[in-house]
């Protein structure tokens, strides 16, 4: 979805148009939910946080001012904040090492398991910061500018960090392949 389309939908949603919200939901939720599942490693928890994120976002939609930032980035920022709150209250996330193959099968319905295992193996070798960057880049499909906004860093820093994460991932990839 282009940014101008997104802005038009938000404008309609601010006026209380449910259909516009529905379109935004349909466009953003797969990325957001995929990101949450991959981050939290627990589908039910991801469901809860997805709902909370949308509820808070829609409730505070009037506060949202684009200022060159996409609505999806704002949602991802809220989602990250929700995750942090959850971890503060209930302890840290399940590590990626704890995830077993059954979870993968339940999580990635219809996915290419060999490819998924390969990526998960690579991700296991990376620090959490790199995993987060790769999630935002490839699951959330955010450009560097939006990643920078979500992580509250500069665009150049975001670009550098993503490239470094990719370099480390490449090392792991070469080791495995």
């Amino acid at each position: 979805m282009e940014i101008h389309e997104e802005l038009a939908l938000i404008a309609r949603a601010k006026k209380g148009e449910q259909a516009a919200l529905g379109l935004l939901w349909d466009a953003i939720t797969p990325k957001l939910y995929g990101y949450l599942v991959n981050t939290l490693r627990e589908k039910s928890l991801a469901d809860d946080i997805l709902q909370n994120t949308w509820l808070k976002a829609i409730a505070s939609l009037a506060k949202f001012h684009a200022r060159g930032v996409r609505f999806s980035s704002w949602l991802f920022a809220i989602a990250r904040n929700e995750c942090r709150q959850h971890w503060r209250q209930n302890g840290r996330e399940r590590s990626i090492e704890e995830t077993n193959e059954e979870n993968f099968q339940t999580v990635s319905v219809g996915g290419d398991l060999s490819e998924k295992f390969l990526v998960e193996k690579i991700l296991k070798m990376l620090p959490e910061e790199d995993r987060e960057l790769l999630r935002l880049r490839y699951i959330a499909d955010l450009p560097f500018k939006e990643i920078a906004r979500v992580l509250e860093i500069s665009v150049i820093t975001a670009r550098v960090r993503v490239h470094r994460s990719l370099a480390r991932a490449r090392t792991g990839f070469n080791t495995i392949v």
Partner: protein
Amino acid sequence: MTQVSYNLKDLLHHWGQKERILPIGNEAMKARIFAALRTQNTVQPERRRFRYPWRIAFVCGGLSILFFVTQGFYLNRLTSADHGLNPAGYGYDAASKVGYQRSSSGEISANDLGVVYGAYTGLSAREVTAGGIVGEIVGGAAKSIGRYFTQASPFDTREYLKTDYHAEIKTRQVQKKATRAQTIVRGHGGRVDNSSSDSKYARIEFVLPKSEMESFKDELKELAASPRFMAEIINSRNLLPEKTVIEQNTASSQSALADSQKQRQDLVVSHNTKVASLKQQLSYTANSINKLKKEFTTSTERQQEIAVAVSNLSTEQRRLNQLLANENAQYQKKRNEIDARIKNEQEQLVFLDQQDRQLINNVETVQGSISIEWISGWGVLALYVPYYRTFIFIAIIALIIYLLYGRRRRFELV
């Protein structure tokens, strides 16, 4: 490597796409959320909040700059005046007052010797300077010697401190305070040399015994409503170089006087010896003439011999008389010259002694001035409100407001 990179990125892109999934029961969840929103009427208009607070920051910043500029202008106006409260102004004023101006070469100029001051007799507004006083003391000697002062020896630790005092008082009752200031000067055994006053400005120049200085200052401070309204400059300078010059000149004059007196004594002795010798010769000649004239003889030849001898002796007598007269004349001339020299040296010594006493008297007195200036209400405010601190304070407040409200936040997380 490129192939690997392509494969990894491709793999990650593919993985990312596969990870994007909808939750089970997506439609039900969506409907549930939207229903909840409908019941809560969640999509509300933005509540009115304090908008554009950064504008206040700019206004505060602008005000602070305006305040800074106007205050700076006001203070500049104060300090640019001859009688400003600015210490820098004082410094300049004091420098001119003490009259201790060095030439570009670093030597003390003729002004420092007080030659200018020596030309006038009264104490005027600007020329009553320490340098002037110094000039009065040593100016004549310096001119007669024809050389400038040099620095005193670093091993000479004597101090002859000449103190100059200047006070600036801001008040709203100029003439009343000026009258009181004069009374204070006289009350401490001082002398008012010059005074002028009008409704806005008054100036009093005075001389005061050094011993009265501290009590005078204390009393003068009571004249000002608050210490903020008064500023003082006390300038002290060691007159040791001048003292050294006087001492050197005295020693030189004493030595010259002793030499002259010795010369006079030698001259008298020499003259007396010569006169005695000449008189002895004259006496012998006169006796010889008398003997020859008394000699009785009938011999014509002898009579001729006596006549020739008397003639020769008379000639010798005249020569000796001439020598005596010449000696007396030369003696008189030389003695007069030496006496004149002695008189000069004695006068010089008296003059140097007088200068020495004047220097000591000068050291024992304080030359000063009091400037009393009318102050406006704004001036009073400027004295009490430190403008630069106010500027910094307002600027900090502006910065805090900007940081708290003005800076655009990345996201307002709910």
